[in-house]
């Protein structure tokens, strides 16, 4: 692949980092076939391969948001490398990992892509994600809904005040802070 490909890919990824819908759709279509097929070659079913592909797109998306992220190989190569690592981890976890898949991954691994990310930190993040989910569940309604509305859905305080029937923004905000404190306590206990 010539360097121009990477430049184009990098431009697309810059738009993706800003949450550009078109950029995402472009990436999705460009990599879908090659990535899912490559995972199916490592004894994944079609559904499993798709799940891995989607999870890998999340990794890519979060990566693009890092300030120093620059792609130095073909985009699909990068996503394949991410997907393979994730799939191997899953196989290992489900005790389905055999020499065949390991050999295959080694044979097809791309060193540049491999050096980009650390699967263990991904696993750790996955663990924290579950932890957050559990903490939110434990926190209960409406506290968790208020927090999710503000921090995850990106709603404004005024919208939240209206939705949750607070007399003014300030009251909603005070309530939100109380909820946040409780969540933190649950999360770290």
């Amino acid at each position, binding site marked *: 692949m010539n360097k121009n490909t990477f430049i184009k890919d990098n431009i697309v990824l810059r738009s993706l980092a800003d949450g550009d819908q078109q950029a995402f*759709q472009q990436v999705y279509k460009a990599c879908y076939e090659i990535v899912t097929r490559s995972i199916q070659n490592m004894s994944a079913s079609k559904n499993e391969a798709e799940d891995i592909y989607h999870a890998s797109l999340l990794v890519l998306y979060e990566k693009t948001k890092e300030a120093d992220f620059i792609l130095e190989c073909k985009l699909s190569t990068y996503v394949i490398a991410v997907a393979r690592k994730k799939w191997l981890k899953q196989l290992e976890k489900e005790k389905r990992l055999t020499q065949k898949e390991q050999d295959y991954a080694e044979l097809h691994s791309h060193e540049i892509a491999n050096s980009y990310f650390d699967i263990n930190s991904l696993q750790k993040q996955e663990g924290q994600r579950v932890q957050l989910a559990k903490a939110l569940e434990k926190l209960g309604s409406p506290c968790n809904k208020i927090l999710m509305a503000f921090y*995850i859905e990106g709603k404004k305080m005024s919208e939240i005040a209206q939705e949750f029937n607070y007399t003014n923004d300030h009251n909603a905000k005070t309530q939100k*802070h109380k909820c*946040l404190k409780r*969540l*933190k306590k649950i999360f770290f206990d």
Partner: protein
Amino acid sequence: MEYIEHIERYLLGEMSQDERRTFEALVDNNPSLHKELTEYEQLFKQFEHAKNEAFVKQQILIAREQDSRTTQNITTKLQKHVNKYWRTAAIAASVAILASLTTFWIVDNAYMQQEDERILQLVNKEVRAIKKKQVRIQNDLAAVKTNVAPDYPSNGSGTAFALDKRGYAITNLHVINGGKKVFIFTKDGKAHKCDIVLKNEENDIAVLKINDSNFQFSNKAVPYQLNKDASLAASIFTLGYPKNEVVYNEGYISSLNGKDGDSSKYQLELPSSPGVSGAPVLDIRGNLIGIVNSKESQSKGITYAIKSNIVQQILDSLGDTCNPIELKQNALAGKNRTDQIKALEDFVFVVKVYK
């Protein structure tokens, strides 16, 4: 003093440069505030991840829908639909961080559809899942049926050993010639029906394959490799099944050729009894030098073994079907004999044939 508002504004990047500096100085001088700040920072990072996940999931949803409905019209309608429901979808997404990726699809498909369409979809999904399950059960059942050895007495038995870990094994042709159905019994006593992949009358060799594509002898590779030039007087040992239990024996190479100068065989000084036909002959490092084949009727200790270069020829003729690479690594060298035997036991089996 409560700092939560400051912490939040700091983490969301809402502070001016001066404010930041003042706040950072405050944090530096207040260890408990510092701790609190780092904890909130971690929590906010998780919020950020959840937010990213919601975005990606929404986009995947759009991509899939676009893929399945190509008409421009429907697509634009759907875009509007998605935009309208994006908030709901996002809630679904944040709720779904409680669950796994796969469960997520059930949740937000549900939000995206009209109520009845939603129910229909869930039902379809269930039906598909049940169908899938049924196929699996049928396969399992078939596997159980084929892997039950007949309850009448066998027509002969011998020993076989693995050529790779995925179900290929080798034995003597005369072991299996007496019947039609061939079963291998692994160490755990389980029966496995085999196909006969290859019969070589000239060298009295048969290659078997366990009739189950998911089967593995072990998750480890076959622990022996071929040694094609063993020396006269070299110590050897075998592992075979003269009875329903594995039996160990040892001896040495007493002649480099078999009966009447047969160069395809070694003559061994090794006690053997019926049933060990097909057993692997290994040198002290655990390399495979041959296959127990027959014994001299007049003299008690003399046993003949098919040389491993014949095994190599057989493997070569199999081509890619069986992966002979696995016979190229040795995991036994340097181990003491009892450990060698332990490692070997998963790869040596009883073969029985039935009419």
